[in-house]
């Protein structure tokens, strides 16, 4: 039955070539840990994506309870943590996942670097990967403020002071991110918008580029 459904759709939209491009490809021996155990280093990219999916899903559930204003933000997180069924698990996954995604991405970057996989013809994919890295750090920085406890508040204050010390542009960057001159109500809503709309949007676009290029060029060959 599924085959008939597939064929029915395929006849109208001709999806087989698309499907071939996305999923139907061979995995070479030198990246397959089943054949060479040391090839586990090639798993880090996939695991980064896996954790990223966890982050997106847990984050979607967190926004059901989170309120981005300075009076209620803390109490909505507290409520989520202690009153909502499985709230502590979902918030825990988002909290620890943020660290884990950095770890996995870091290991993936090191693998690509030390196997020289960024070399021609894959330069653009490396650059896109580094942009993903920066977006992830941005997500970590903006997400850290959202619980609005003292740790969040003062870390953001220090971070924005560092941004403010960039010559010429620093003050403008700082004011833009602050949404004014102090870390306050505007900063929180701004960071919330950046954390849940701007950066994830950029992240998905960059990931699409990253995956398009890896499928187009194939994984780098054995050393």
């Amino acid at each position, binding site marked *: 039955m599924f085959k008939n459904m597939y064929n029915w759709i395929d*006849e109208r939209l001709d999806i087989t070539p698309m499907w071939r491009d996305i999923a139907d490809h061979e995995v070479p021996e030198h990246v397959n840990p089943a054949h060479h155990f040391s090839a586990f280093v090639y798993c880090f990219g996939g695991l980064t994506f*896996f954790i990223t999916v966890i982050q997106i899903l847990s984050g979607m559930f967190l926004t059901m309870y989170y309120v981005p204003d300075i009076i209620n933000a803390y109490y909505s997180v507290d409520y989520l943590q202690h009153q909502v069924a499985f709230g502590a698990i979902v918030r825990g996954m988002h909290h620890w996942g943020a660290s884990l995604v950095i770890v996995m991405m870091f290991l993936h970057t090191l693998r690509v670097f*030390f196997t020289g996989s960024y070399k021609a013809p894959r330069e653009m994919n490396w650059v896109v990967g580094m942009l993903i890295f920066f977006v992830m750090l941005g997500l970590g920085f903006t997400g850290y403020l959202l619980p609005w406890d003292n740790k969040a508040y003062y870390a953001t204050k220090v971070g924005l002071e560092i941004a403010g010390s960039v010559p010429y542009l620093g003050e403008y960057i700082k004011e833009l991110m602050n949404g004014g001159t102090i870390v306050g109500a505007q900063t929180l809503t701004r960071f919330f918008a950046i954390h849940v709309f701007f950066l994830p949007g950029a992240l998905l676009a960059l990931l699409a580029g990253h995956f398009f290029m890896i499928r187009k060029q194939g994984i780098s060959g054995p050393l």
Partner: protein
Amino acid sequence: MAHKHDPNEKVVYVGDSRIRRHNNVNVPHDYSAYPGKSEAFIPNFLLKEWMVGVVVLVGFLVLVIAEPAPLGYPADPLNSSFIPMPDWYFLFLYQLLKYPYTSGDYLVLGVLGLSGLPFISLLLAPFLDTGKERRFYRRPIASSLMILSLVACTYLTWVSWHHYQEELRINEVTPEHIKRELEAEEAVKKGLPRPVPGKEKIPAMVASDDPTFTETMKEAQCISCHGAELQGGNAPALRGVGDRLNEEEIANVITNGREAMPAFKDQLSKEQIDQVAAWLAKQKAEGAE
């Protein structure tokens, strides 16, 4: 558009769409055509990758359940004694910008030269390291620069964390999320509801016309931190303190200080301290009208 197909036409479309009609069924490539022991991504390899993913997921969930995500006290912009702490993956940068040649007059060097430049060179690595060689031991410059940066980042992170721990120890500060957990545990043990910071009901003041409060404590500036009505401010509320500490413990805190609280043994006489402690010990929820 014509809806009838000419049997001799070379390209046949589905209806009037731009999709070409074809009759070949979906036959995957024969993987034996590729060199080495390659295998299909779906489903063979993806299944193995999923098994690795599951192992990671289980470890991850164990961590999540064992260590709840921390939450301290609500942000207070007037709190001047809080020790700022970025998330761990920013610590190296935080520490780097504390050194004499990366801060103050040299901040531009620190921010642009020692932080911005390495990041930009990492971004542009493929255009800086253009050789054909891929093995890391045949690329001594690129590899040693990377290893050096890794060692530096590890060291800076460690130093930063070490400093933080030292600062906590010297100032006798417990990180707020831990302090809060302990408080909650204590309250639950006593059968009270879990306290939510800033939402506690502060009991009314007992014997508010006592000269101990209207004179001695005003002169000692207690209210500048604990609030004019002892409702709390930079320091905890003192209304209801009698439920938490007894008279002796209160006297000890006033005499020797605790955490951010200074010692008052030089400003108040022993009798005054005892008076204040006795009055504060009366501040209980049940005594309040």
